[in-house]
């Protein structure tokens, strides 16, 4: 009896981890530098967050 109980728990855990999924959240995905001079450095840091329950993997960043 105790054995079956343990097994079910294990199965539930396995199932839930299969469904765990990452959620990429970016508060401010847009940024306006305003007017800047050609010799300025246009540098910006976007804050990102994983609001899901699985590991988030950034696979690729492609600039246009």
């Amino acid at each position, binding site marked *: 009896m105790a054995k079956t109980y343990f097994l079910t728990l294990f199965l539930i855990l396995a199932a839930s981890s299969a469904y*765990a*999924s*990452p*959620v*990429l959240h*970016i508060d401010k*995905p*847009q*940024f*306006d*530098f*305003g*007017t*800047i*001079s*050609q*010799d*300025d*450095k*246009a*540098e*910006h*840091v*976007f*804050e*990102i*967050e*994983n*609001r*899901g*329950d*699985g*590991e*988030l*993997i*950034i*696979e*690729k*960043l*492609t*600039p*246009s």
Partner: protein
Amino acid sequence: MASSDHLKPGQKGEIKVTVDLRGKFGAIVKTIQVITNDPLRRRTNLLMKMRVKDLIHARKYEADEIFKAPCRGCHVERGNSQKKFSLFMSDCIMCHNEGRSALPVSGMQAKAREEIEKALREGIRKTSMPGWDAKHGGPLTDEEIRGLVDYIKPAARRSRN
């Protein structure tokens, strides 16, 4: 660019972007596509906007400096021997256009012809609008001035309102 490419649940991270502005000019929009394993949204776009001024234009100037070297090469000489519409397109459009510092032609038409001519001849103090006629140190002849006023607001329009 990214602080780490693996984020645990609840973890925060950063994506740092540097845009190289050398040789860039005017309004620029940059997008960066972020591809992740987020099952509901694999692609997310980051967007950056800016207006880039070249080195000449980054500084503040007196209005009539555009009549002098090295500015006049672009701001005056391109209009040499042009008239009316083409003179406007050479000397005025860089400021008098949508998204620029001054009204486009359609907006200026709300003013009286006398007002338009006065502003054009004498300039408007405390703005980047210089006086364009010779008496105010400008490069335009009386005939060119009248041609521009006629282009901006044809005389016939006046009798209608």
